[in-house]
């Protein structure tokens, strides 16, 4: 994902802003390939995996029954 996406993303649970932590960029420096998005309100953490942010709420992530 590009950093500009952060401007529109919000927490799926309470719609508050997200903060980027531990960001790793690709070689060109314009894509975030990994990191964590943290809700500034509830503290819920959303991982960026292989360049794709995972904004699935906790109850829908891997390992939780569909």
């Amino acid at each position, binding site marked *: *994902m*590009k950093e500009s996406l952060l401007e529109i993303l919000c927490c799926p649970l309470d719609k508050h802003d997200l903060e980027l932590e531990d960001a790793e960029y690709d070689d060109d420096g314009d894509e975030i390939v990994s990191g964590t998005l943290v809700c500034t309100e509830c503290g819920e953490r959303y991982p960026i995996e292989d360049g*794709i942010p995972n904004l699935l709420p906790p109850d829908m992530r891997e390992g939780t029954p569909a």
Partner: protein
Amino acid sequence: MKGQEWYQADDVAEEYDDKRFSQGGQLIDRREKRAVLEAIEPLEDRRVLEIACGTGRFTTMIADRGADVVGLDISAAMLQQGREKARAAGVSDRLEFLRGDAGRLPFPDDHFDTVIAMRFFHLADDPEAFLSEMRRVSSDQIVFDTFNRYSARSVYNWALPMGSRLYSKSEVSVLLAKTDLTLVDVEDDFIVPYGLYRSIPNVLASSIRSVDRVIGRSTVGDHLASVSYWDTRVR
């Protein structure tokens, strides 16, 4: 969500495009793309969100026509294919993908101009909740399709791996009223259901399709059509 597990398997994602869009599937693909473009163009500088974007066949096309696009899906495997498609098409700078739940979208109110959801509502267990969440993030337009209850689709529906929900016209009208959406246009098509198109050879697909089109133009066709494309506006 019925399709949740089936659509997320890696092997399903890898074979998905081949399976869906070979042979008769190409006819469906072209028709769906036309339905989407007719509803949402002009696209220059529009903000567009696609729900359940899968491997990105619509998002890539929409970004290519000048919109800023976000594609949301539940499946990481499908989205990786989407990223590759976007890169190949040279539209990565205006197309972003993310995983998310269509019922709890990670976007602020009214952010997008247009929100689309193709081949989504047949998998929705609570269509009203999904539609009102789409409406929340749209300031102008929502476009989606439904498979129709009174059509040939109902005959083979039970055999599909992902399950499928069929809608009558009046059910959709009620949904639109409940979610405060105004109907701008609805188009019906495909008397012969998608499943048949995908399983027959190209030559045959084209000739069946031309018969399908002729019947589809008559009033009878409207009631038999297996798919409807809905173009709606936020009130």
